[in-house]
């Protein structure tokens, strides 16, 4: 407490030195903290119980879908509890103490204290997060129960155990009332991500992807960890309740333009935390792991790598928003990184052919949007986009997963076409359409509103207009590549080539047998369609026989009830999410967040002038405009137009006149683009760049160290090994094996000891006399 009070005094000095007590307005409204109900602790611990039960299932070699039902049931309960907590929570925040976890006391009177309890901090921000985390997890677990049915008996338990563990970790991350518990969850989700990406551990690429994700995340985690350390060093606490109160004076100082009063360490903390967020949320330069993470099973991609885990970075920034507001460099950094990531990922996504990979890049890109949203001070926009994105991206991924499931792992958009109109695939196609419209920002979809909020605020916030332009351009690209997928895979002529495996694991031996009907006859398109229809009916008749046994013929199997239900629910949720925008004054999310610490904060004029970068000022005159118009109103039209242009371009290039899956009009444009297209296809060779700039030099250094290790360290060690050996070989003859030789030694030794005793006695007697 000593440290606390010291910091507090210093902070008060900062405040009191400039303004009078009456003038000391709050920088932001600190929520009133109450003691929360105990059952909030069930939200994380039910999934943990699920993980344990799935582990037991694995131990007892359960050969049924039991683990899936355990998982779904427990996650649904968890979701229900979250809803209950949401009902109970009215503004403010509540802390539910589960148990004492870490508590150190030191100092002369044990008055220095470090506390990190297993307590859960429920406020509007964390409960909002938990709502979609548990809700989506429940739905995706249901989806996975069918999707993973190939794995029943082998990896089913392992999958669901890791799934539950993930939800537990994510809940700790979100609900934890201190940064240490957040870090526990942070590492927990990283671990589960590693386990689930490497789920098909027999596949080298999956193993490599898992390792890549893990290592990349470690880089970010280093930043987060150092941020937490510095937080404790400077503020003397890691608990949010105290932390926000202690950060307030600095926010106030920035608000009033007293930048000199903010120490460098306070500037540094949010930057380090942001680096942690970049790692977890796959932002430039640490984004390269996320596309590779698609090696995991699709539900994992949907849950972890699109909807929940990757938004942990966004959550971290939103959670510690007061710390970010106290720095005049952290949020601009976040904004630029977010914008660069959004653009870069979108350009790469345009040139990819693997539909899951395209979705992965779009996730990276959309995460960039969210970061920008936070950075341009519209936490509501950022968090709303997280929410809408979670639903529509989960929809998109699960739809892609259904395709992958049905077509034996086929993900190449050049080998699939017209899937939506094949029998049994309508729901998938419609869900995909809803997801794509959302992602593309089609007017009146949820994605449209959330993206508009970010774009508009980017133009409103001074000095952030370039970010707004970049994001606007990216929005157009997003619309293009999203509908590129839709137009090529889900509509158009029916055609498919099954993949060479089912779900990445070489479990079935479906031959690479292309079932191309009418492939070589582009003129007779209509005839081909008919032939397909006939063929499909024939397939339908053959449905009785298991497609995995039909070696000669591959039949795509349409998704079952679980997948369809989940897809329909999610698509519906994506559509309905738009309604949230119309609740309340500035949208439901904004209303939620204004009562948490992640609220918008306004600067005074002095603050704006002094910091140069400036947070939004309260005065309307200082707000930016979009080419002279009110950005909010203008953006309704502008972003709609941009989105429609993107969709139109995709329609022209990838739907019109396309007669087969493999080619489209866009191919004709490729020569004109020259090497750019190839580069984009190669993901701008970022991986290669990293390899050259970081990995290779490290390898060279490691070789050098290896040599040093061999020569000097090993030499030293060997020297210490050789020395005793030499001494030993010198002494070895003593060990003659002859009994009496040893006895002589004993006798002489005894004589020596007695001699010493005698001499000591004599010496002692001499002294005495």
């Amino acid at each position: 407490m000593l440290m606390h009070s010291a910091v507090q005094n210093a902070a008060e000095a900062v405040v009191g030195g400039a303004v009078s007590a009456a003038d000391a307005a709050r920088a932001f409204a600190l929520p009133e903290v109450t003691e929360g109900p105990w059952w909030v602790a069930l939200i994380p611990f039910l999934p943990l119980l699920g993980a344990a039960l799935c582990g037991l299932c694995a131990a007892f070699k359960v050969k049924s879908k039991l683990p899936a039902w355990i998982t779904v049931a427990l996650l649904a309960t968890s979701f229900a509890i979250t809803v209950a907590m949401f009902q109970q929570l009215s503004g403010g925040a509540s802390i539910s103490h589960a148990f004492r976890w870490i508590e150190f006391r030191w100092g002369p009177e044990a008055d220095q204290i470090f506390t990190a309890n297993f307590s859960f901090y429920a406020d509007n921000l964390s409960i909002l997060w938990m709502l979609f985390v548990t809700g989506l997890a429940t739905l995706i677990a249901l989806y996975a129960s069918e999707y993973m049915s190939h794995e029943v008996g082998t990896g089913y338990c392992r999958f669901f155990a890791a799934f539950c563990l993930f939800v537990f970790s994510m809940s700790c991350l979100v609900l934890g009332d201190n940064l240490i518990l957040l870090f526990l969850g942070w590492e927990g989700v990283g671990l589960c991500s590693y386990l689930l990406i490497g789920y098909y551990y027999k596949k080298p690429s999956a193993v490599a992807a898992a390792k890549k994700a893990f290592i990349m995340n470690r880089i970010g985690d280093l930043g987060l960890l150092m941020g937490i350390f510095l937080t404790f060093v400077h503020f003397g606490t890691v608990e949010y309740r105290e932390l926000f109160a202690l950060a307030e004076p600095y926010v106030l100082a920035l608000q009033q333009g007293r930048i000199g009063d903010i120490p460098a360490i306070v500037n540094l903390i949010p930057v380090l935390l942001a680096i942690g967020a970049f790692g977890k949320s796959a932002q430039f330069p640490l984004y390269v792991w996320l596309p590779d993470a698609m090696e995991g099973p699709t539900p994992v991609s949907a849950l972890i790598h699109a909807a929940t885990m990757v938004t942990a970075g966004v959550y971290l920034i939103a959670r510690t928003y007061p710390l970010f507001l106290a720095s005049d460099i952290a949020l601009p950094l976040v904004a630029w990184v977010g914008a660069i990531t959004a653009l870069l990922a979108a350009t790469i996504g345009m040139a990819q052919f693997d539909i899951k990979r395209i979705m992965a890049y779009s996730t990276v890109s959309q995460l960039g949007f969210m970061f920008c949203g936070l950075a341009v001070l519209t936490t509501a926009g950022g968090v709303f986009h997280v929410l809408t994105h979670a639903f529509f991206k989960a929809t998109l991924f699960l739809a892609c997963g259904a395709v992958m499931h049905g077509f034996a792992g086929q993900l190449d958009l050049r080998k699939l076409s017209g899937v939506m109109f094949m029998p049994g695939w309508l729901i998938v196609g419609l869900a995909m359409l809803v997801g794509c419209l959302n992602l593309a920002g089609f007017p009146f979809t949820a994605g449209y509103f959330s993206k508009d909020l970010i774009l508009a605020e980017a133009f409103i916030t001074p000095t952030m207009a370039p970010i707004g332009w970049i994001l606007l351009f990216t929005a157009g690209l997003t619309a293009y590549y999203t509908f590129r997928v839709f137009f090529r895979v889900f509509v158009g002529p029916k055609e498919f080539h099954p993949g060479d495996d089912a779900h990445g694991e070489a479990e079935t031996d479906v031959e690479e047998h292309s079932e191309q009907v009418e492939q070589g006859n582009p003129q007779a398109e209509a005839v081909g369609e008919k032939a397909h229809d006939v063929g499909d009916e024939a397939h339908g008749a053959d449905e009785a026989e298991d497609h995995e046994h039909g070696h000669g013929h591959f039949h795509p199997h349409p998704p079952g009830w679980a997948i369809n239900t989940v897809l329909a629910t999610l698509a519906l949720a994506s559509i309905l999410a738009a309604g949230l925008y119309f609740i309340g004054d500035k949208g439901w999310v904004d209303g939620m967040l204004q009562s948490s610490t992640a609220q918008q904060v306004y600067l005074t004029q002095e603050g704006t002038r002094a910091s140069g970068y400036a947070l939004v000022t309260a005065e309307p005159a200082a707000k930016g405009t979009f080419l002279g118009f009110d950005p909010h109103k203008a953006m309704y039209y502008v972003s709609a137009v941009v989105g429609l242009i993107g969709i139109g371009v995709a329609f022209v290039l990838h739907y019109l006149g396309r007669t087969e899956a493999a080619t489209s009009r866009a191919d004709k444009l490729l020569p004109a683009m020259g090497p750019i297209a190839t580069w984009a296809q190669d993901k701008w060779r970022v991986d290669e760049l990293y390899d050259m700039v970081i990995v290779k030099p490290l390898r060279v250094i490691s070789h050098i160290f290896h040599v040093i290790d061999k020569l000097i360290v090993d030499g030293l060690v060997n020297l210490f090994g050789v020395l005793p050996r030499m001494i030993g070989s010198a002494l070895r003859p003593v060990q003659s094996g002859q009994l009496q030789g040893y006895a002589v030694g004993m006798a002489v030794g005894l004589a020596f000891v007695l001699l010493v005793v005698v001499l000591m006695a004599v010496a002692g007697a001499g002294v005495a006399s």
Partner: protein
Amino acid sequence: MQDVLTLAQAGGTPPMAGVTLAHYLFVSAAMFALGLVGFLVRRNLIVMFLCTELMFQASGIALIAFARYHMEMSGQTFVIFVLTVAAAEAALALALVVLLFRRRDSLSTEAWQEMRG
């Protein structure tokens, strides 16, 4: 023998009549040294054990002499104990010797020197 018996009776005669404790101790030490020499120079396992018995004997003499000097019976009690140990040792050692002899057909210690550096 009359002298011996007189001496043996506790009480009347002064302890160590004519002979000092040092005499007995020297005899004991010399016997011990002889036993040690025997242990070191003889190559016959049985004789070596005989020499250890010699050393036991020497220590027995010293103990009895001290017991007499101090008029303290614990010394004699201890000799009983030494005797016990000697008997046990003889039994085990001879069993071992028999075992070793069966293996090598020899009583030489030099037949058993595999354990060398």
